[in-house]
């Protein structure tokens, strides 16, 4: 049945080359853990992507219950955490997943560094990778405030003060992030929410696309 639907579409659209391009690629022996177990270090990039996908999905579902408003934010998080079936699990996935992404990304960076995979002709992809690193840190930073509890609030107070300590433009950066000249309040929360669910994920998708296209163009770097 599925095969016949596929054939019907394929006959008209010729979709086979589309996914073949994505699925068919060389996996050299030196990155295949079945040949050398130590090749598992090459999995960290994929694992980072996998956890990012979990973050996207669980985040989408969390916004069904979350409100970015100083009166309701904490209450809505408590509600989805304690009243909604599996709410605790989904929030747990997003919460712990955030740390897992950073750990995996760090291990991936180490592997690329120590195998020298960043060298010519792959310098640009290293740069894109570093940008992804900052976007992920930004996601962690903005997401931390959203539950609007004491820990979230004061962590952001401290972070904004660190931002303010930048010479010359520090004050401007703080106001830009907080959305208010003195307060860390209602406008900060909506701002962080917008950055966390629209701006940074959008940027991340673009950067990931660039990252993967470059890998496909240049192939996997050679053995040590």
């Amino acid at each position: 049945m599925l095969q016949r639907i596929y054939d019907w579409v394929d006959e008209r659209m010729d979709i086979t080359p589309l996914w073949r391009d994505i699925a068919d690629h060389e996996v050299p022996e030196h990155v295949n853990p079945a040949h050398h177990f130590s090749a598992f270090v090459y999995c960290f990039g994929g694992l980072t992507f996998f956890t990012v996908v979990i973050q996207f999905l669980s985040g989408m579902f969390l916004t069904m219950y979350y409100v970015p408003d100083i009166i309701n934010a904490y209450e809505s998080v408590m509600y989805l955490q304690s009243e909604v079936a599996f709410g605790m699990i989904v929030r747990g996935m997003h919460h712990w997943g955030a740390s897992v992404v950073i750990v995996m990304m760090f291990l991936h960076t180490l592997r690329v560094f120590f195998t020298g995979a960043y060298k010519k002709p792959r310098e640009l992809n290293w740069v894109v990778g570093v940008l992804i690193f900052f976007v992920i840190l930004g996601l962690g930073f903005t997401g931390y405030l959203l539950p609007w509890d004491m820990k979230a609030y004061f962590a952001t107070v401290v972070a904004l003060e660190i931002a303010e300590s930048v010479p010359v433009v520090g004050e401007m950066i703080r106001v830009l992030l907080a959305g208010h000249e003195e307060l860390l309040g209602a406008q900060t929360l909506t701002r962080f929410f917008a950055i966390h669910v629209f701006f940074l994920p959008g940027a991340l998708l673009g950067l990931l696309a660039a990252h993967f296209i470059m890998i496909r163009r240049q192939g996997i770097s050679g053995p040590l």
Partner: protein
Amino acid sequence: MSEKEHNVSRRQFLTYTLTGVGGFMAAGMLMPMVRMAVDPVLEVGAEGDMVAVADLDELTEEPQSFPLNFEQDDGWYEAEIEETAWIYLDGDDVVALSPECTHLGCTVNWEANEDEPERFFCPCHFGLFERDGTNVPNTPPTEPLHRYEHEVRDGTVYLGRPQPQV
């Protein structure tokens, strides 16, 4: 033994196991999320409390409007809701009708139209209801006004939630 003598080829076996394991992982990931999203559908409605609305001796044969205050749980938000009910005595029986028109939800009033005495009138599309809530034929509403569940304890009338009469 060559590949051909097996009923399931090596490639098929790999496809099956990989699809199985992959499907299991994807399901484990998505199940909590989907279950969370459909929670409102599966939730069993909480039994509403009965609210004291009026004293029995305030009631007459004539429908009177009484306020009805209760707390409404809306997820993380709790609202104080004030509704009204049209309550009258039918012999010894208490009848409490919801003022919500069964056409499109406007609010009906007792004898609000001078040409239609002894009837509830809805100003939106001129819906009419008899004293017991029955909708008058050839006016827009298609079912009787909803009736509150009620209970009389120690001379006080308690109301629950309105239920359809049909």
